[in-house]
């Protein structure tokens, strides 16, 4: 193991390490701690400039109720779910199919199709922006959560295909061969032989895509406007404009916006990291 396990070092450095850990963590998360603290401050603290001292009172309930009562934040959150959940289902479903096709079959265009997905996944968003907005307008889905979700499904299929294909490629091919010898049809092989083995990949991709899409801001501003359709990221930006200097509310809003992906991460940590670090080890 590298670096040397701390248990094998002197008592002094062990102690030093145990003290350094929490201090480093507090410094690392200082901006977030500040936001969390501010989100429970009173308006009085904010006007008095008490940003960093101990709050004079804890207004957690007031602040968090206030943002839900006085702003469409509930609506924004709901919109985020309306975009994120269909995207996760759609992109994962499509990439199970494409990943299977590219991971199992040998045909001439295989690598070419695969590279198309990989390259498309890396292009800058701006090269797609004008035509995609135009396409959404023509299809009548501009400024709807459906339109936003449709684009996300299509774009995320690139990354998901890369992921699924590599996952399936690493599976034992003999399994499929055996099924073929038995005369099982290709569709049944996909459904009964390969799909059950893809569960960990599906779980990892789902949490990853959930987080990516929940946090998307660019496409939300390009394809939606107004509280009826905007997801929370774009919503938070417009709220920030309205709440000049109401930092306790901005903070509470930020915390609410960050909650779903954070919960997702902590609940599904193993899958999340497995997905993110795909390819980091050979």
């Amino acid at each position, binding site marked *: 193991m*590298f*670096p040397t396990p*701390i248990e094998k070092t002197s008592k002094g450095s062990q102690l030093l390490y145990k003290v350094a850990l929490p201090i480093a963590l507090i410094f690392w998360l200082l901006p977030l701690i500040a936001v969390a603290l501010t989100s429970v401050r009173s308006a009085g603290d904010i006007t008095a400039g008490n940003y960093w001292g101990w709050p004079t009172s804890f207004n957690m309930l007031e602040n968090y109720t206030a943002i839900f009562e006085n702003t469409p934040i509930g609506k924004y959150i709901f919109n985020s779910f309306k975009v994120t959940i269909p995207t996760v289902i759609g992109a994962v479903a499509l990439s199970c199919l*494409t990943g299977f*096709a590219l991971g199992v079959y040998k045909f001439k265009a295989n690598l070419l199709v695969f590279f198309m997905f990989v390259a498309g996944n890396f292009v800058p968003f*701006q*090269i797609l922006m004008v035509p995609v907005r135009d396409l959404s307008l023509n299809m009548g889905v501009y400024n709807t959560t459906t339109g936003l979700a449709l684009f996300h499904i299509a*774009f995320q299929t*690139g990354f998901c295909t890369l992921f699924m294909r590599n996952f399936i490629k690493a599976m034992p091919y003999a399994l499929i061969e055996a099924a073929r010898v038995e005369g099982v049809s290709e569709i049944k092989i996909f459904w009964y032989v390969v799909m059950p083995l893809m569960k960990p990949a599906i779980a990892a991709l789902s949490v990853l895509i959930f987080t990516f899409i929940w946090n998307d801001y660019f496409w939300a501003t390009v394809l939606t406007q107004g509280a009826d359709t905007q997801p929370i990221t774009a919503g938070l930006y417009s709220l920030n404009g309205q709440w000049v200097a109401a930092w306790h509310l901005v903070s509470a809003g930020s915390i609410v916006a960050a909650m779903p992906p954070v919960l997702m991460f902590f609940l599904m940590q193993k899958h999340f990291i497995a997905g993110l670090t795909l390819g980091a080890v050979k």
Partner: protein
Amino acid sequence: MRSYWKQNQQRLAPWLFLAPGIFMFAVYVIIPIFQSLSISLYAWDGLGEKEYVGLANYVELMDDRAFYTSLKNNVIWLVLYMLAIPAGLFVALFLNQTVRGIRIYKSLFFFPFVISQVVVGLVFSWFYDPNFGLLNIGLQAIGLEPIAVLADENWVTYGIIAAGLWPQTAYCMILYLTGLNAVDPEQIEAARLDKAKGLKMLWYVVLPQLKPATFIAMVVTIIGALRSFDLISIMTDGGPYGSSRVLAFYMYEQAFSEYGFRMGYGAAIAVVLLAIMMIYITAFLYKMYRDERGL
């Protein structure tokens, strides 16, 4: 019909499985790339008739100072964003221990990556606030003049990049933690017997084994740097006086904001950005191609 399917199943099946994915990807990604290439040759406000102008948009770019500012900032982003890689490695080495509770520490260090860049941007604009931001409280405490980072043309881009480095370092850290987990303990022990330690051990024994992690970290960091848009939009909206724009942001401004609706000009900027990205995409595909052949 049935027997045709039976005979050619293995040849037809992949295309059947690929069809829905390829269709969606073509409609929303592949075709739009070519459409943008074409739009960049037109003057178009997004609604009326397109007017063919040839390379006029590109010629105009060559004399556009805002374009050069954006390009310069993109280069600064690319270079400084790379700091996330050694920083991530450093944090990963610090956390690669097995003391009690270390798993919680690892997840909490990873935290900044999970939250949206919108929130990161808000948090940092606040951290930089000239009146009450923590940065300036700190500066004053050590006797320095406060700096209004986001309102200062010389500082603003660096301020935003610092905010971006926070989640990016977390990302690289997790890649390296996974990589370190897979480092061959026997090689480490053998090197220890040869009295290798510290930086030498890191450089000659550990880093070579972390190559795949470093590669992925480089890919995601370069892409992240060139995609930078959210933080700029949230923290400064390109200001002050457009000094924190990057190509991605400038393109958006030209095409969609009140200044413009100049779709053709915007598309031309996007094409330049794509051309820069293509260098990295090609390199990545080339490496993948070699790996595939080498299998």
